């Protein structure tokens, strides 16, 4: 198929339509506005429905409702807007409904700015809402992946009946790259026999709820959720290694930062330093075992975690390594972006050598 030039946000929106998403509820915020803009024009062409809600809180609760009726539904926002949606996300997770939530992260905390950032890692992977729940978190590094992962997010959400987050940043949202449209690998999706889509007098009522007033019942639901999260952790972990096999310096980075780290790896290799990159693709479930094994090689002298934040994923890196290798950090908060040279310098520091 011919390559097409797509802007990240528009590719995400088109991918949702191609995945059969017919409902979108959102509230505008930069740097993701092209998603609602695109869907407001194109969803109706596919018989779908676009609603610009009165607030993010309203939007996520509309998602809750549409998901409960068995529809494929998405919302998108950027950091402060995603914060507002957390109550709805924990309800959706507890009620075990499929939904896709896109976060094109921007600088924070607070209202922050509109520059690319990765400072919502904790929020996405730990759950910004209350209670013991997880969301699957997919982190694209290219526009191709943004298109692929958004389509697949709907399948993962339906398969496990759980909210799935596509976590990218303003850079991925705003940039254009050539992509090919392709379908995700097929999954046997279970029927949505739980949906509140009308009994037609032929079956008992379905009830969707996240209230378990009896502690025993709530414990049962928690156990059930945990078993599901364990299954996801077993089967959905994804990561990519780049020149990691013989690396003495191993960078760990995701999304946009992984691209910067790749540039640093190539620069270091050119200078004769064996550098490599481990890129988590799913941030939850985190590729803990794979990273541990990758960093366990004798040749790995140090691991350098790189993020557009003050250091959040580094916790998961440290958990994975369990002290086996020294972990260093390069990162900036508030929307600033490190240059590949800063990563190169850190690699030389880690090796106790002078750079070229």
């Amino acid at each position, binding site marked *: 198929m011919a390559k097409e*030039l797509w802007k990240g946000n528009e590719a995400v929106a088109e991918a949702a339509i191609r995945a059969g998403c017919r409902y979108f509820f959102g509230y505008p915020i930069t740097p993701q506005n092209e998603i609602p803009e695109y869907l407001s024009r194109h969803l109706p062409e596919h018989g779908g429905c676009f609603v610009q809600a009165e607030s993010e809180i309203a939007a996520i609760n509309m998602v809750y409702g549409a998901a409960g009726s068995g529809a494929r539904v998405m919302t998108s926002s950027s950091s402060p807007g995603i914060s507002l949606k957390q109550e709805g996300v924990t309800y959706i997770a507890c009620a075990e409904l499929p939904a896709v939530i896109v976060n094109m992260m921007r600088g924070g905390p607070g209202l922050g700015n509109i520059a690319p950032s990765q400072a919502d890692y904790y929020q996405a992977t730990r759950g910004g809402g209350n209670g013991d729940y997880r969301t699957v978190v997919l982190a694209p590094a290219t526009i191709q992946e943004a298109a692929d992962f958004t389509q697949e997010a709907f399948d993962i959400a339906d398969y496990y009946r759980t909210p799935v987050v596509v976590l990218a940043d*303003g850079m991925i949202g705003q940039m254009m790259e050539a992509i090919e449209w392709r379908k995700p690998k097929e999954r046997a999706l279970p029927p949505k026999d739980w949906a509140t889509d009308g009994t037609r007098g032929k079956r008992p009522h379905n009830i969707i709820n996240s209230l378990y007033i009896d502690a025993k019942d709530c414990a049962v639901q928690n156990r059930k959720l945990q078993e599901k999260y364990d299954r996801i952790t077993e089967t959905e972990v994804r990561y990519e290694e780049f020149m990691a096999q013989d690396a003495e310096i191993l960078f760990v980075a995701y999304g946009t930062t992984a691209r910067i780290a790749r540039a640093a790896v190539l620069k270091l290799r050119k200078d004769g330093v064996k550098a490599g990159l481990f890129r988590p693709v799913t941030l939850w479930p985190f590729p803990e075992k794979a990273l541990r094994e990758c960093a366990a090689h004798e040749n790995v002298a140090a691991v350098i975690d790189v993020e557009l934040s003050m250091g959040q994923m580094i916790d998961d890196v440290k958990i994975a390594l369990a002290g086996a290798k020294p972990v260093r950090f390069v990162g900036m908060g508030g929307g600033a972006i490190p240059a590949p040279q800063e990563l190169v310098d850190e690699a030389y520091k880690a090796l106790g050598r002078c750079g070229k």
Partner: protein
Amino acid sequence: MTHEIVISGFGGQGVMAMGKTLAEAGMKEGLCVSWLPSYGPEMRGGTANCSVVLSGEEIISPMVQSPTELIAMNKPSLVKFEPQMVPGGKLFVNSSIIELKASRADISAYYIPCLSIAEELGNIKVANMVMLGAYIGATGLLQTETIRGMLAHMFTGPKAALVELNIEALRRGAACVREA
């Protein structure tokens, strides 16, 4: 071969469109491409820029720190980005409104009166296409035919006449470079 291009000017001068045209034409000619806009709180009359990378190899970072080519459509853009250029880089200056000359001797500068040429062609909106023509002429990077195909796809029906206007703008831009 990797071209790292910064295109910068006032909002409304068509700098984003120029970048998208370069990226799309590059893609159609089989190159790896990326287009990254600056996206501050820009508005018409404010400053805007985009980074375009065209390469025979996979593009790692879409951010351009040291442009191999700079297209400066206004003076602030020239002042801001010229110092970042790689030695041997190519600089394209919109000499219709920028009176400054290149301050570096280690780059090639092309002075293109793109706005005046667009006025001669009867439509100031094609000033960016004149500049793009100059870029193509100086770098030999893309084929005018590729862009003609894209324009024919973009402008149809009552707008079809714009195809030839834009092609003429490209041609006039390229001619400036040949004369230089």
